[in-house]
């Protein structure tokens, strides 16, 4: 989706805050030893030193080899949670969008992302365990909103949707019930090309341009930019 947004002319930076580094790999960056957001958060490097232009209008900050250590930090420092926010304040001012790809956990890295972010974009598969995960995440978000006295703008993206499974429709219906006017209008359907393209280091727009999935992501990008949601206002 970030690539599709960048193709509309918007300047986009994506930060891989997941120690697994899947985002970087899917954009063709496989050097796991490369310094990234880890070094910036630890104050060892600046954003300008680690940012990588990966596509036109799209730049990437990889996770870096020390990100896992940050996740496991056990210091009593009161500023452990705002390392990312502090790091981002020092650069990236020319960008239209900065996306932070979070790990599937609720540890220190996610805390840092929540401190730094204004909006939350949550990709959801249409199965029960995704609902369970969303419930857990929303618990964390609510606690944050309460303690930080701020309200996140929330977006949901339905991904890997399988139209011929009844449970997919039921999950979507349940999400619409709990999150009206929050789910981006275009649903990303499960397709083979989406499973294939990351291993080639290509986005689906490059791997299979003109495919249904590529068109879906282009529509999704427009939805995000224009705020077009299901049950549009």
């Amino acid at each position, binding site marked *: 989706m970030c690539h599709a947004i960048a193709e509309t002319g918007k300047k986009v930076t994506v930060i891989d805050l997941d120690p697994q580094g899947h985002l970087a790999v899917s954009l063709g960056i496989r050097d796991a030893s490369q310094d990234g957001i880890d070094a910036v958060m630890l104050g060892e490097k600046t954003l300008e030193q680690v940012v990588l232009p990966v596509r036109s209008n799209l730049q990437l900050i990889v996770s870096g080899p020390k990100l896992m250590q940050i996740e496991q930090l056990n210091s009593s420092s009161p500023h452990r949670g705002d390392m990312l926010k502090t790091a981002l304040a020092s650069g990236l001012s020319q960008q239209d969008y900065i996306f932070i790809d979070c790990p599937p956990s609720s540890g220190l890295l996610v805390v840092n992302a929540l401190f730094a972010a204004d909006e939350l974009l949550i990709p959801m598969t249409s199965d029960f365990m995704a609902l*369970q995960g969303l419930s857990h995440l*929303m618990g964390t978000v609510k606690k944050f909103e309460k303690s930080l006295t701020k309200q996140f703008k929330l977006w949901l993206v339905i991904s890997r949707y399988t139209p011929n499974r009844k449970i997919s429709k*039921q999950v979507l219906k349940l999400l619409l*019930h709990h999150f009206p006017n929050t789910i981006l209008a275009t*649903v990303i359907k499960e397709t083979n090309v989406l499973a294939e393209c990351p291993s080639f280091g290509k986005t689906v727009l490059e791997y299979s341009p003109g495919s249904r999935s590529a068109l879906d992501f282009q529509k999704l990008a427009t939805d995000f930019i224009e705020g077009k949601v299901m049950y549009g206002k």
Partner: protein
Amino acid sequence: MANNEENSLIGYDPLAWMEQEQTDVTEPSDDILAATGLMTSQDNEDSDIDPELVAENSSEPDEEAAMIDDTTEQQQTEDEISAESPVLLEPLQNIQNVGRLHQRLKKVLAANDLIEINASEVNSIDTTTLQLLVALKKRREQIR
């Protein structure tokens, strides 16, 4: 809500707490009943969810219908639900069986002046059931 529909494939709604958190439990309403899965499937057909939206994503209804047969617990038919009081609550009383309890209580309420609820076997009860019981009490007072 999907978890309350007949043939639902979602046993319970992990997100139900979000609405319960925002709702005054002492003032149950139809909205609460809907939010906590207490409305009937017929009620849910009036949902404001755009059918086109879901229909657009559905291409093989026959296959879906076949999948339905494989699913979840059997719903009790209208005739099988007892109208007798006392109503014995189940040991684990939660959102998975609250729809059945709702049906039972409606029938008992219609057939009896006095409703007795036996909760002696309950080990665990969730807020959806508690809300149902509060709603029952209010409805009973309205009828009087």
